[in-house]
Structures are given as C-alpha cells and as structure tokens.
C-alpha cells in the first residue's frame, strides 16, 4: 500500500528534477563540456525513471481498483512502456559511466557514441523484449556490467591516488564514483548479504513463481538477474572495504558514513529476510503467503525510501555539489527552486509515510510540514548554498592534474543527444503501444 503512496511522489520528484536539470544544462554555457554532458544524461535518467514510475503508478492504481485483469495487464501498453523505459535507463547508465566521473572517451565523439548506444538499445532490445514477453528482461541487467566495471575501477584508482600519493583533491572523483554506484544500484543495495549467502535466490524463486502468470520463468533470465545481484553485492562490499581503509588513513567522511549505513542496513535486511523464509518459500512449496506487516513497514522505510527518494537525491547531490551545471549567476533562482522543491517533496512524503505507521493526528503532521516549510524558506539561501557548498568540480581536478584533455561539445551536439534520447523514448513508447494494440505477444 505504501509503495503505491510513494510511487506517485517518486514520479513527481523524478519528472520535475529531470526536466529542470535538462533546462539547467542548456543554461549552463560556462560549465565544463564533459560535465555538462554528464548532467544532461543524469537529467534524462531522472526523466526516464519518472516516466517509468508514472506507468507503474497507473498500473498499481488499476490493479488495486480491479480495473485490469492479469491477462489485460500482460499485453498492456503500460507494462510494455514500463519495461521499455527501464531498458533505456540501463542504456543511459552505460553512456554515463563512459563519461563521468572519469571520461573514458575524451573527445566529442562520446556524444555520437551516446546517441548510437541509446538508439540501438531502443531498437534492438525493446521490440525483442516485447515480442518475447520479457522472458529475458534481465538481459538489460547485463548493461550494468559497464557502470560496475568502470565506476569501481575509477573508485579504486582515485582512492589509491588519494591515500598513497596524498592527493586530497582525488577524493572528489572516488566519492562521485561511489555515489553513482549507490544511485545506479539503489534497488538492490540493501540485499547485499542476502546475495552473498544465496538467500536472495529464495526471493528470486518466489518472484518467478508469483509472476508466472505474466511470463514463464526462465533459467537464463534468472541467471542474468543473478549477474546484477552479484554486481551490487560486490560493489557495496568493495566500496565498504575501501572506505574502511580510507577512514584509517584519512579519517571519516560523509560518504564513508553513508557506505557504512548501507552496509549495516544490508546485515539487518539479511536477518529480517531470514525470519520470513517460510513465507518466501511458501510460493514455491505451497501457495504464496503475505509477508509480516512489520517486515513490510521495514521494507518501505528502507528499500522503498532508498529507491524512490534517496536515489534522485544522490543524483541531484552529484549534479549540484560537484558543479555539473552552473548554479550561480542567472541560474541561482532556478537552482534554489530546484533544491527547495526537492526538499519539500521529500519532507512531505516522509511525514506522510510516518503517518501511515504511527497514529499521529493529521494536525500535528500538518504543523510539522508547515514548520519544515518555514525552515526551508527562512534558510533558503543557507540550504541552497549548503547543497552546492563544496562546488569542487571533478573535471577541474582532473584537468589540473593533467589526467584528462579539455575537449568541447558544441551546443548542436547537446541538442543532437537530446533529440536522440527523446526519439528513443518516443520510439520505445510507440513500439510498446503498437504491439500492445496488435496483441502480438498475447
């Protein structure tokens, strides 16, 4: 139920932030070109996640109100649309990892490559996915091998240069790499111990059986999903070990605390999951039983909040704090609106979530929200400057140390990329709509 409540909020957050980021990119003429391109990709990622959550919100509404049968849902445009946008999201992560924080292609060809990757993924994987009834939908998980291999490589490289050669400025790069890993794999982060101990396979089995009405379980697909799980588990453990090492040498940092929190959350999740194993296995052995209410609440307050609220916050933190776009000059008011909007939406959704669990009268939560609004407005400047306080640009750090070459991306190239992603999304939705109307895979 609470997922249904969080999804519309997540939809709104992602759509607004995505749209505003893309607008800000085009208003940030003075930003480093590569970083501006990264911000553009991040804006599209947020926008596409927003579209994905919009579809899921409508699906949830229809399912909860018995407006759609399982058969209708199986061939519905909404299902195809949601799956298609997820494929594009995974594809954009490949392009982002090639670009930021360390550009692996250091010329404007990266834009052409980005356009081609996005369009090819759309044209190959989306129709194939729909026609095969998404029996191999986890194949898009394999796209995440790129960000995993690239970002962890960058993280380790710059963690070592910071610690071994005492290059303090290199922390910016390893921190961004770690944050992007967390944001990209946000869905699975809290299950790392379950994955390591194979406990997560019980859940995969449950979901395979539970979803068998929509598409038949497929061992190849499940193995590909395991690849994603392994990526996530190894990522968080690697970053955890890296941060422990860094804490010993350089002291604790915000990223370290965040990593440790996720690590501990994973241990707690493993224990909670273990208590539910009977229910998890019930789907395979007898019939699917519902999870414990407390367990569901814990799920909402950890995994769901990470997925729907924390992930966009991480993306926005990277965009604003690491100077991917211009936050000063004429963009100040725009940035302030962006930050305040983000904080207000997140605060209101958290207050509403608390209200669903604790019997707090609405008057009190309204007062709390009003207080938050007052604080945000009163300290608007302080909060905004706090968000963009560090303003340490990864590109500047790399340029100063001579580890990248400065290259330019023309305005027309940004536009071309914008058009190619826009066309990809439109194509994906049109393919979904047409195949849904023709009922090809029914």
């Amino acid at each position: 139920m609470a997922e249904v409540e969080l999804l519309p909020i997540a939809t709104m957050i992602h759509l607004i932030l995505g749209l505003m980021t893309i607008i800000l990119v085009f208003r940030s003429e003075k930003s480093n070109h590569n970083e501006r391109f990264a911000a553009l990709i991040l804006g599209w990622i947020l926008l596409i996640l927003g579209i994905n959550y919009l579809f899921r919100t409508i699906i949830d509404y229809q399912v909860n109100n018995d407006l759609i049968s399982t058969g209708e849902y199986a061939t519905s445009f909404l299902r195809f649309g949601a799956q298609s946008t997820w494929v594009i999201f995974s594809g954009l992560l490949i392009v982002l990892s090639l670009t930021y924080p360390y550009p692996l292609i250091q010329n404007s060809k990266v834009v052409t490559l980005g356009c081609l990757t996005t369009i090819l993924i759309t044209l190959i994987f989306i129709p194939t996915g729909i026609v095969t009834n998404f029996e191999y939908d986890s194949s898009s998980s394999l796209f995440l091998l790129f960000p995993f291999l690239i970002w962890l490589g960058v993280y380790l490289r710059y963690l070592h240069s910071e610690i071994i050669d005492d290059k303090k400025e290199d922390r910016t790069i390893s921190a961004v790499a770690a944050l992007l890993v967390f944001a990209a794999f946000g869905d699975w982060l809290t299950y790392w111990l379950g994955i390591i101990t194979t406990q997560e396979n019980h859940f995969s089995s449950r979901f395979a059986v539970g979803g068998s009405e929509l598409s038949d379980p497929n061992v190849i697909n499940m193995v590909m999903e395991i690849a994603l799980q392994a990526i996530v588990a190894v990522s968080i453990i690697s970053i955890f070990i890296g941060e422990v090492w860094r804490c010993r040498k350089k002291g604790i940092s915000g990223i370290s605390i965040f990593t440790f929190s996720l690590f501990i959350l994973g241990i707690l999740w493993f224990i909670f999951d273990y208590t539910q194993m009977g229910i998890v296995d019930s789907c395979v052995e007898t019939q699917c039983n519902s999870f414990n209410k407390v367990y569901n609440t814990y799920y909402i307050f950890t995994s769901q909040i990470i997925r729907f609220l924390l992930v966009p916050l991480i993306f926005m933190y990277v965009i604003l704090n690491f100077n991917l776009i211009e936050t000063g000059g004429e963009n100040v008011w725009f940035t302030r609106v962006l930050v305040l909007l983000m904080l207000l939406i997140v605060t209101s959704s958290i207050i509403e979530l608390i209200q669903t669990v604790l019997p707090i009268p609405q008057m009190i939560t309204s007062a709390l929200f009003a207080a938050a609004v007052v604080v945000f407005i009163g300290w608007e400047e302080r909060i905004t400057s706090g968000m963009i306080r560090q303003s340490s640009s990864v590109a500047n750090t790399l340029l100063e140390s001579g580890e990248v070459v400065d290259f330019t991306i023309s305005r027309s190239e940004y536009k071309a990329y914008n058009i190619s992603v826009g066309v990809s999304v439109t194509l994906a939705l049109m393919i979904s709509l047409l195949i849904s109307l023709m009922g090809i895979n029914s």
Partner: protein
Amino acid sequence: MSQSKSSEKFDGSPKSIFLNMTAYNEAVKKYFVVVASFLVVFTYNSFDLVYNHWELIEDATTEDEWYLTFNEQSENLQESRVLQDGEMQTFTFYIDDINVPDGYLIGEINITVDDTGNDGLIANTDPTNECDSILADVREGGLTAQWADENNTLSGQTNDCQPFFMYLRVYPDYDGISRSSDSVNEFQALLPWQQSGWGYGELEIDVEVNTDDSIFPGQSSDDEEITITIEVIMFEISASEVI
C-alpha cells in the same frame, strides 16, 4: 610514493587513458580481486539457483493432474419426540457437539424423519389403518452450510407411513465422489477442500403432525412419535499425482 607508470604527457588517447587508469599497481590488483569476486559470487549463486531452486520453480509453475479421494466417516444424532395432532415442534441438533476427527471436515448431512416407531408399524401391517401426515422443514441459518445449493432437500412430507429423507450440503461442492484436479502441487490441489468454518452451529428442523382418524374404532390416536436421525458425513481428502 607515487606508483605512476607513465611519465608521458597525457594526450587523451585510449592508450594514455588506459595508462592513467592503471597507474597504481595496488589499485589494479584490487580491481582484479573485485572482478574475480564478482565472478565467484555470480558463479555460486547461479549454481545454487540451477541446482537447488530451478526444479522447484518448474514444479511450482507447471500444472499436474491430481486424483482426489475422500475418506468418509459418519456420526449419527437422533432425537424422538411425541407430537400431538396439529402440533409443530422444532428439533434442534447441536452439530458442534460432534467429535470431528483430526483432519476431517463436515461434508454433508442426511436427515431421516421417521414416524414408523409408533402407529406406523401397525399401519404397515394393517391396511385398514390410516397414516398420519408428517411435514418437516429444515430451518435455514443456524448452521454454516451451503443453504443455496440446488442439491439440497430442505423440506419433506409423508402420509404413507414411510420415513422420508432430506439433505443438506455443508461443504461447498462436496458430494463424496472422487475427482481429478489440475494443480501445481499437492497443497494447492487439496486447498479447496481444506476450508474450515463449515458445519458450525445448530441444525433446526420444524416438524408438524396431522393425525388421521381411522375408520376402525380404537385404531386412531391423537399423537405421533417422530424420530429424526441426522447422519453427519465427515470427510478427509487425499491427493495422488496422476502419472
């Protein structure tokens, strides 16, 4: 302490990018450990899935044919009363009092209304005797059962001195006949036959007697002994997979 491999000027070429990324041997070694860890976690998780879960998933998503058989037991309740001419009485049977064995559920109730215990015997042997008229109605409600089932016989009457029978289906669709079912596992095949809550409460039967006067003096009576026998059929379900 720098372990930088390259002293060449960085030119943004793939080679210089590669050299920059691999500038720290320690980092490269750890990177390979990370990749190896990924491969290890991926391999044993895949192995676990294929060998420990996949067969179960296939079983749980493939429908098999199951043959369902009912083992029945029954228990009788009986009550006799003498009713006067024109009198109506309600016979109440407390089904909750029945000792239902573990694993059994109440399936149906057969009701026999019998007036042969009194003048019925005489009537049966003496053709000159007139039979009394007996009417019985099972009162709806009171007992959790399939009151709207079309197979029920909830009322009856007799005036030929013969017992008559009524029937109430208690468990949904229960008829005691073995059948087959398509289900993914034994549990789900048995599931429709494991609902608790049926057969609780009391069964009330209204009985009315109208005695007939015999044309022969001394053979008529103003009362009638009515015996109602309730046969409660209980069942236990078992399933075997049809191979």
